[in-house]
């Protein structure tokens, strides 16, 4: 018994700094927005799929399923916590989707919360590094900016682009995503850096060469929530259900174990192909993409692996404007991780929040005609990859 699945309400807190709230309190805020726009009863929700990456380190908090359920008045139902680094809530979403699709539940809550900003940069950087190989990568002091710095330098070499030229090209990702982030009231950088220039990116503080501060997404506190159900259930309750048309997921080990293709991000290609296949679509059918731009170069290599551009052409594409809101394939018109913020465990369902709002024509600050969107969430150095395709059309 396979059923079509759709999104009802979505919710997202303002991204940024929330030192005054616990993880469950922060999540409750996102949940209430999602619930209040779903036209359902509390008792309709049969299970909770919650994503969180490092609650133990930032808040001394684990076993979060129960605390989340209790905080929002749903104590008693099954509540799971999912951890797949930055892809935690996308993994949660995919599991929730599969459960509804295959008849386990009719209506469930998915979401995530994280408090990395409040943790401070040294602890936050160490917490993020737990998503790397703990024995063989972290020992050298490798960090996530470091991983993508290694990839940037290798990308330049592989495609024979002078490193300084590549830095300029990928700086456009930061300029673009900050432009949209500055327009997004829920973004960490709302009203900030909207007029960032390529030179500002190049001249900001070096974090891991060749990546500077503006090549990186920030540390963020935030939460997001999504209610999904069978398409029939959703159609009875909301005017514009957004249908989940396909999902994909893939895995890999440490970066150095993936020696065959680190600039090509093979796990992402596998995950995206799984999602396209289930949806019966190709990259040409996608109108807008919400891609894991943890770093400028990360968006570029993702845009290639997902099939929007040939390998080696992604950096040119952003420089030429093809991924801007008025371009061929708009990428991250909500600001992405760079402009909107990256509350790790909440990021995947926050991408879905933006995608759903945009497909419903409710993303007021940017106008894009779109019927189909894809999300892309990356955990670790390609260890966990999830892609989700959403559409206004059921079939």
């Amino acid at each position, binding site marked *: 018994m396979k059923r079509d699945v759709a999104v009802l309400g979505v919710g997202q807190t303002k991204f940024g700094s929330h030192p005054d709230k616990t993880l469950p309190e922060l999540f409750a805020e996102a949940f209430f927005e999602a619930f209040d726009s779903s036209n359902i009863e509390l008792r309709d929700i049969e299970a909770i799929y919650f994503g969180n990456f490092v609650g133990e380190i930032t808040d001394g908090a684990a076993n979060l399923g129960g605390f989340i359920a209790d905080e929002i008045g749903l104590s008693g139902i099954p509540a799971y916590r999912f951890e797949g680094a930055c892809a935690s809530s996308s993994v949660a979403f995919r599991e929730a989707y599969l459960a509804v699709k295959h008849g386990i539940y009719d209506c469930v809550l998915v979401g995530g919360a994280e408090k990395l900003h409040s943790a401070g*940069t*040294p*602890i936050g*950087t*160490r917490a*993020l*590094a*737990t998503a790397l190989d*703990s*024995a*063989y*990568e*972290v*020992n*050298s*002091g*490798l*960090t996530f*900016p*470091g991983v993508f*710095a*290694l*990839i940037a*330098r*290798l990308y330049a*070499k592989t495609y024979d682009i002078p*490193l300084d030229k590549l830095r300029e090209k990928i700086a456009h990702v930061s300029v673009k995503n900050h432009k949209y982030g500055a327009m997004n009231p829920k973004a960490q950088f709302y009203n900030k850096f909207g007029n960032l220039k390529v030179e500002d990116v190049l001249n900001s*503080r*070096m*974090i*891991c*060469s*060749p*990546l500077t501060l503006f090549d990186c997404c920030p540390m963020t506190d935030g939460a997001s929530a999504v209610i999904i159900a069978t398409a029939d259930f959703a159609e009875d309750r909301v005017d514009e259900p957004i249908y989940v048309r396909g999902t994909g997921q893939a895995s890999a*080990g*440490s*970066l*150095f*174990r993936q*020696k065959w293709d680190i600039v090509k991000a093979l796990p992402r290609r596998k995950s995206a192909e799984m999602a396209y296949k289930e949806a019966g679509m190709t990259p040409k059918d996608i109108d807008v993409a919400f891609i894991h731009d943890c770093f400028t170069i990360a968006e570029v290599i993702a845009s290639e692996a997902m099939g929007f551009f040939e390998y080696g052409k992604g950096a040119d594409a952003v420089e030429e404007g093809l991924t801007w809101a008025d371009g061929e394939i708009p990428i991250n018109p909500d600001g992405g991780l760079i402009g909107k913020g990256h509350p790790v465990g909440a990021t995947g369902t926050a991408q879905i929040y933006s995608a759903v709002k945009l497909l419903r024509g409710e993303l007021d600050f940017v106008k894009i005609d779109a019927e189909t969107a894809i999300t892309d969430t990356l955990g670790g150095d390609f260890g966990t990859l999830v892609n989700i395709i959403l559409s206004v059309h059921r079939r």
Partner: protein
Amino acid sequence: MFKDFFSALMEGKLIGAKCRECEEITCPPKSTCNRCGSRNLEIVELSGKGKIVSYTVTYVAPLGYDREVPYVVAIVELDEGAWIIGRLDVDAEKADNEDLIGKRVEVYGKEFPTEQFYPDKQRRVVPMFRVVE
């Protein structure tokens, strides 16, 4: 297993796991072959020589590593084919001003203080890469 790898490295030996099915060298060793997934492996000593694939100078370090900045993290492709991650023992300025990709290196081990989250609670060993050309 990971402690054996670092103990050998501190004794001047870089060890890998050679696959008896497909000949692939997996380094550092893991429970299965990095190419074919076979468990039919034997531990072998490698040449400890290779070339730089990519590198980055780290200026912002995690808690526990902040006293070591700036440091240069690199991926090296060993002559036996495996890639490993370690640190280049060149100074940050040289690494940022020159293109070191493709340079030949030799691997050796260096001990650093461990930190609360590192799996070895006694010490933290880092594969170091010495440029030899």
